[in-house]
């Protein structure tokens, strides 16, 4: 039983790391803001979710699992909100590009 749990946890951790690496690659290589946001939020939600799942299978107590789950929920909600805000900002920039913009990346 413990062997099975350890295997399952290892698989989840490896998949989680895969999503983080894929998200980072996407952030670096994708052409525009929208697809980069897609890649990065995918890493945040799926990658962190799988890592939390993997660690939960090894956790000593329900308390630790609950804390990790809460962290995952908070990160997921924050990154979704931040993604929406960035994407909307970019869309407004696309619509009226002549507007002056001090904050944008040079």
């Amino acid at each position, binding site marked *: 039983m413990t062997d099975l749990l350890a295997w399952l946890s290892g698989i989840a951790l490896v998949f989680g790391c895969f999503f983080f690496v894929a998200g980072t690659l996407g952030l670096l290589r994708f052409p525009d803001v929208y697809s980069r946001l897609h890649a990065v939020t995918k890493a945040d939600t799926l990658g962190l979710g799988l890592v939390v799942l993997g660690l939960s299978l090894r956790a000593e107590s329900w308390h630790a699992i609950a804390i990790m789950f809460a962290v995952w929920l908070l990160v997921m909600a924050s990154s979704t909100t931040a993604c929406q*805000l960035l994407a909307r900002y970019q869309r407004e920039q696309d619509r009226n590009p002549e507007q002056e913009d001090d904050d944008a990346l*040079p």
Partner: protein
Amino acid sequence: MLSLELLFDITLSVLLLILAGTALHVRHLYTGIVLFVAFGLLLAITWARLGAPDLALAEAAIGAGLTGVLLLAALARIGPEPPPRRPPARALSAGVLGVLVLILLIRAVLPLEQGPQPLPGLVSAHLDTSGVSHPVTAVLLNFRAWDTLLELVVLLLAVLGVRQLQPAGYKQAHAWTLLRAWSRILAPLSVIIAGYLLWRGSHAPGGAFQAGALLAAGIVLLRLAGLLPVLRWDDWPMRALVLMGIVVFLGIAAAGAWLGSGWLNYPPQWSGNLILLIEVAATLSIAASLSLLVIGEREELGT
């Protein structure tokens, strides 16, 4: 297993050096600030690895979070960047200063090589009389309370200095419904966690600065979403909040000097409650000061 940990530590150290170097020498200030925030987060992990969770919390909340926000706000105000120029005299003086600081740091670190130091033993010997059970809090608010008091004064001076500069505002995008909804959930959470950190500070890592920074984050979020009115130094409740920490701290110190055993010497039977009182007042003051620093007097936000 040890080699894995060593590998992690070496990676961390190398990444820290790379981030520090690039943050200083990158061409665009914006990239430099982003790298500086990343540097602060990695530094927080480093403190945690070194077994100093107090410093890790403070570094993550204040070093990376708050300083990053302040730097970004300053960058938005200065407009187009001037072309970077580095006269050789400045580079030379920076180098000399760096070497001097390095010598000071090495002098501070070298004694650790020669076995255990007397200070930790002294602190744990007097921990019972300090009124708290966490050694870091005992040092910060009892044995070396002068330092903490002066830190609060430094923060007040920073708020006053920013007020003197009267920074111009910048245009702020309309606050979206999603941000409002999420900040309505997040702000109460920040209040709860700040209260938890403050309460925990007496027996575990945590304390006034970390709790104040978290509270300020909640206030800034609500203000950015347009859910709070403009924060002004001219409103007397705001001034009272900002000054409260120093006033309470000085009041307790003066009362000790006048009636008790001396300046900042608490009577042992009350010291726990006095430290809690100071911490609560300091947390509220720090939260008010930090929020004023970031979003004070800015009417154009969240319209």
